[in-house]
């Protein structure tokens, strides 16, 4: 039983990262109905940006006390800002022109952007995995036979805090309201005086910033990264968004944690384990899309004619 609970803890911390990425997919899809294929690569970019900031700060190992709080705060805010700006730039250059084009056109562009980002990162940090410094001290403590590490706690707490902040922003602020209105009916929102372009750019800013945070968290959690990381993580996070109901912010969080749990448990209990986890996750995606395309929390909308 201990093994099972151990995998639950592992799954939840994995899931925290997926949930943060899934939020970006779901927000963008909710507002312009585009699967932002490049989102996974923005997440990897977040890890690389964090790495660059840590290098600039001269941090290469564990940090303690007040300095730890400062280093984490500076790195995470910096990575979020840089990723957010990247997201806005991508939207402006590659997607805005195609907002009224046939649906597959921006999707093809998004794949192109993804390939460009991957190539840029490969040229920047090379084709091999890059180590990420152990910034956070990592004592682990046992709770009834289950090992929980400080990193795992930090990942889950950080993810939950981000999600709570996002939820508050969307439901309680004017800008959040504008985002919801634009997602619901773009033309009507525009008639009500909402600046559509700014609102969509804001969506990309927030979604990509969350991916940047996820990038920092995953660097700390795994201790390594490489330029192609975002492809797989992006697909899993997209699966999470679909599982939760695409366009639904709460659904993306739920889906993220569920995919993390499914992955951890599949790794443990399927013979051959780790090498089949991708197959399991993609099978979940296919099954959800076939049997419940609206996801767990999404409403099924009739297709617009």
């Amino acid at each position, binding site marked *: 039983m201990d093994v099972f609970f151990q995998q639950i803890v592992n799954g939840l911390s994995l899931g925290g990262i997926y949930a943060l990425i899934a939020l970006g997919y779901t927000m963008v899809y909710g507002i312009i109905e585009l699967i932002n294929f490049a989102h996974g690569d923005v997440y990897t970019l977040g890890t690389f940006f964090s790495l660059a900031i840590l290098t600039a700060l001269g941090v290469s190992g564990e940090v303690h006390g007040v300095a730890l709080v400062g280093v984490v705060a500076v790195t995470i805010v910096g990575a979020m800002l840089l990723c957010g700006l990247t997201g806005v730039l991508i939207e402006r250059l590659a997607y805005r022109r195609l907002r009224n084009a046939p649906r597959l056109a921006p999707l*093809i562009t998004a794949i192109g952007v993804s390939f460009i980002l991957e190539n840029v990162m490969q040229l920047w940090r090379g084709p091999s995995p890059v180590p990420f410094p152990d910034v956070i001290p990592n004592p682990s403590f046992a709770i009834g036979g289950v090992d929980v590490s400080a990193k795992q706690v930090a990942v889950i707490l950080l993810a939950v805090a981000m999600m709570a902040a996002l939820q508050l922003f969307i439901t309680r602020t004017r800008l959040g309201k504008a985002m919801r209105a634009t997602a619901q009916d773009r033309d009507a929102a525009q008639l009500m005086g909402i600046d559509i372009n700014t609102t969509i750019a804001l969506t990309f800013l927030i979604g990509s910033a969350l991916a940047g945070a996820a990038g920092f968290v995953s660097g700390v959690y795994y201790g390594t990264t490489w330029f192609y990381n975002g492809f797989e993580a992006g697909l899993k996070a997209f699966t999470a968004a679909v599982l939760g109901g695409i366009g639904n912010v709460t659904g993306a969080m739920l889906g993220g944690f569920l995919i993390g749990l499914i992955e951890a448990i599949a790794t443990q209990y399927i013979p051959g384990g780790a090498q089949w986890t991708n197959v399991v996750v993609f099978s979940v995606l296919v099954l959800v899309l076939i049997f419940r395309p609206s996801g767990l929390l999404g409403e099924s909308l009739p297709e617009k004619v």
Partner: protein
Amino acid sequence: MPPVLRRAGPFVLGLVLVAYPFLDRNNSHVDFLANAGAFILLALGLNIVVGFAGLLDLGYAAFFAIGSYSYAMLASQQFGVHVPFWLMLIVAPVIAALFGVLLGAPTLRLRGDYLAIVTLGFGEIVPQTFLNLSQYTNGPNGISSLDQPSLFGHPFGFSATPYYYVLLVLIALGLLAARNLQNSRLGRAWMAIREDELAARHMGINVTATKLSAFALGASFSGLAGVVYAAKLDLVSPDQFQFSVSVLVLSMLVLGGMGNIWGVVAGSFVLSFVNSFLLPQSTSLAHAAGFANLDFTNYRFMLYGAILVLMMLFRPEGLIPSRQRAAEFHEASGDPRLEAQEQAEYEGAAG
């Protein structure tokens, strides 16, 4: 172009291509052309799915893998089975088409972008499965020493020339098939679905069966290319079928012009040329000129990405467009030129 040239063009091109190995004794050039031929075959198949039927398939390399592995498993020492190469040219496309139906049947009801992601998942699962089932496929090492094809008792040997001719024949047949399909009842049904699925359904088209046939036919081209490619390379391994292969073939379509057969052929030839000739050659030129750190082949992904982005933004119908496809792209994006033209036609009709 005068009609005489239009008719004669393909014949002259065909003659030049048949004569080419006799004119150019450089085996590496013929080898390049044969590889390009395999990609032309792939692009022709994907064009049926994406260009004609308008279904974005991002896991097309999976069918290429299935074709290649079929040959590797049914014509080598791996299981001691030795199905002749020529028979495999029929068997493997059938196997690939069956997998196409298997994937398509449950998923083709999905909306376009979801379908794209599901096919992408399939494209990841297939090579991963070949990698994981190492007791049958030798895992990452792949299967080598495949049976050598032979014609009338003459084995193909290690020269690329026999494969070049096989591919030339297959491409000719593929072009013929694609052109006839395009003008057939089925082809018109594909285009009707592409333009407006709901309207097509109401005109009595069986949408699911029509989409499935596009998937199956597209997959069979890929399976066919897989057999020849595997036999020529004498090796099949999972890393030959990554996502980038699917994206490469898609870039060929986007560059040349989705839905236009000649555009697709031109696009895949140009991109193959850039990929396996221009980039390596200019790299060695740069090295010779003293730029030792410059390696243009490292920019491949950037090239595919840039083609996809720039073409979609500025010329979504491709360099050699299909007229219908061009109209669809510009109608939806509210192209002022097209709108002005429609307005003029409308006023003309009213007056």
